[in-house]
């Protein structure tokens, strides 16, 4: 009996060690490139290209960042990215929760059609709408404007779906009670419903912000002059424009694109990952 127990415990210990080994190896493979990117962005080009490669910088320098900022107006691209992502996030939070509440809790003709259209939209690939959207935005005179970058993303089918699913779990009695108390419909929405939606709003907010920040193809096509570039567009065009690849400034640029969202993600990961998990189950 005792020997069987120790055998089991040894097997458990071996299993645990193997598990850790695999996970740490996996973590190195997934997160390692990001760490390497950050460390290499402060190495001189010569050291980045050294064979065998170095892990920790032998000579630390901010030269790559200096080169990057002298050639390109990165503060402006940063501002553009921030402006677009903030506007898109605010629009999605407000409009998607309004319509999500209506779809979940109010009775009105046409609501079924609207919801089916939203569901159908979830399956439409981006390339289907891409060309007409581009023609539309150009014809509206919005090419190369902030409005052109923001408007097509101000609402999203996924956001409506998420908010509606979440709002359905809120008890009707709360809303009825507010109605009996004589509160107006918008007041009910703003004061009673929205505060209850905080977890869903947090998920949708972070998700939308990340998506907008990382959005690439649309701003690449719509922003035609440098003053409207977002960070990913600027970095992509910067890397394409070179004859010989200089990894140093590129890595510095990559750090600047990735760092803000990584910080945001790590700080908010608890809310965020929980939210993702619940959307997947419904």
């Amino acid at each position, binding site marked *: 009996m005792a020997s069987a127990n120790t055998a089991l415990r040894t097997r458990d210990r071996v299993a645990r060690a193997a598990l850790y080994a695999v996970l740490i190896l996996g973590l190195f493979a997934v997160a390692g490139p990001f760490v390497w990117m950050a460390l290499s962005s402060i190495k001189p080009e010569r050291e980045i290209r050294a064979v065998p490669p170095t892990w920790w910088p032998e000579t630390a320098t901010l030269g790559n960042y200096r080169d990057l900022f002298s050639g390109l107006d990165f503060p402006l691209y940063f501002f553009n990215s921030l402006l677009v992502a903030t506007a898109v996030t605010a629009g999605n939070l407000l409009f998607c929760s309004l*319509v999500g509440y209506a779809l979940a809790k109010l009775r009105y003709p046409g609501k079924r059609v609207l919801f089916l259209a939203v569901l159908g939209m979830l399956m439409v690939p981006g390339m289907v709408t891409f060309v*007409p959207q581009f023609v539309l935005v150009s014809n509206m005179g919005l090419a190369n404007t902030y409005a052109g970058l923001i408007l097509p993303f101000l609402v999203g089918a996924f956001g409506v779906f998420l908010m509606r699913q979440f709002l359905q779990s809120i008890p009707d009695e709360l809303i009825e009670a507010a109605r009996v108390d004589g509160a107006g419909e918008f007041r009910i929405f703003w004061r009673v419903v929205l505060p209850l939606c905080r977890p869903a709003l947090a998920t949708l907010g972070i998700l939308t912000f990340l998506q907008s920040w990382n959005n690439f193809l649309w701003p690449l096509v719509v922003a035609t002059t440098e003053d409207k570039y977002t960070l990913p567009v600027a970095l992509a065009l910067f890397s394409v424009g070179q004859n010989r690849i200089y990894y140093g400034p590129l890595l510095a640029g990559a750090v600047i694109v990735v760092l803000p969202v990584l910080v945001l993600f790590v700080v908010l990961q608890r809310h965020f990952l929980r939210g993702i998990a619940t959307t997947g189950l419904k």
Partner: protein
Amino acid sequence: MSSASTAPARTAAATSPGRPALPVRRQRLRQALTGWLFSAPFTVLFVVFMALPVVVSLVMSFTDLRSTDLRNPLAVNFVGLDNYTRLFADRLFLRAAVNTLGFVVVGVPLTMVLALAAASALNSGLVRFRTLFRVGFYLPVVSSIVAIAVVWRFLLDPEIGLVNNLLRLVGIDGPSWLYDTNLALPSLTVMAAWRNFGFLMVIFLAGLQAVPADLYEAATLDGATRWQQFRNVTLPMLRPTLLFGGVVTGIGFLQLFEEPFVMTQGGPLSSTLSVSFHIYNQFGFGNYGYAASASYVLFLAIVALSAVQFRLLRERS
């Protein structure tokens, strides 16, 4: 009309706390008006920027619209199914379709296996620092593809890249991954799995945590090994979650665009050209009608995939 829309508002304002509720009919009208009002901002934007483009795209796919015709719409002709028949005779499109299918058929299972392995390991109860691993595995999901491309192009650089440097340590002369017609697409497939498995891992973790613990207890009492428990308890219980994950990933992978766009530009020799990339190129050449027809073929593929999933889900319940 105007009296109908202002009356309930006035009544609502006049209602003081404690008054009996409005008559049923008025209440219904009030709810309908509120519903429309709350739906209006979304619906306007949705119709203009999404629903309308979907319809316009369909109409465009039956015309010979080119970018040069935009100023002179009268020059546009309906050509019936011409674009679609041309599409299936277009060797580049067929190449793109084969590439995309290959990417989906290998990439989706690879991503799912990685995600399930990571989720199972983190859910086994044997591991500490779970948050660290979860956050670490999720990093690529939240990172810009442009930044990822910078790093991966370096990793896969034939001369100075880390991958080939590692291979050199064990005496292997590594290939030029992204410049080899046989290796470029597999390289992008691995990169896409690397980039996306963290998302599925989070969803699978939630699914695993919803499996009742007493099922495992019963299985342990029956003497089932860990592997048997995984095969006979975990996998069947996780089926809906796995299907969901498979379809979401499939829909995403069918639209493969960003990886080849930033890594290979579709090359070498179109070996990484995807359907979405082909559509984008046709858009660039100004062939709007033709691009639209290709996008609808992609749309149909996605609908077919989703339909298969609904069938599979219904079979179970």
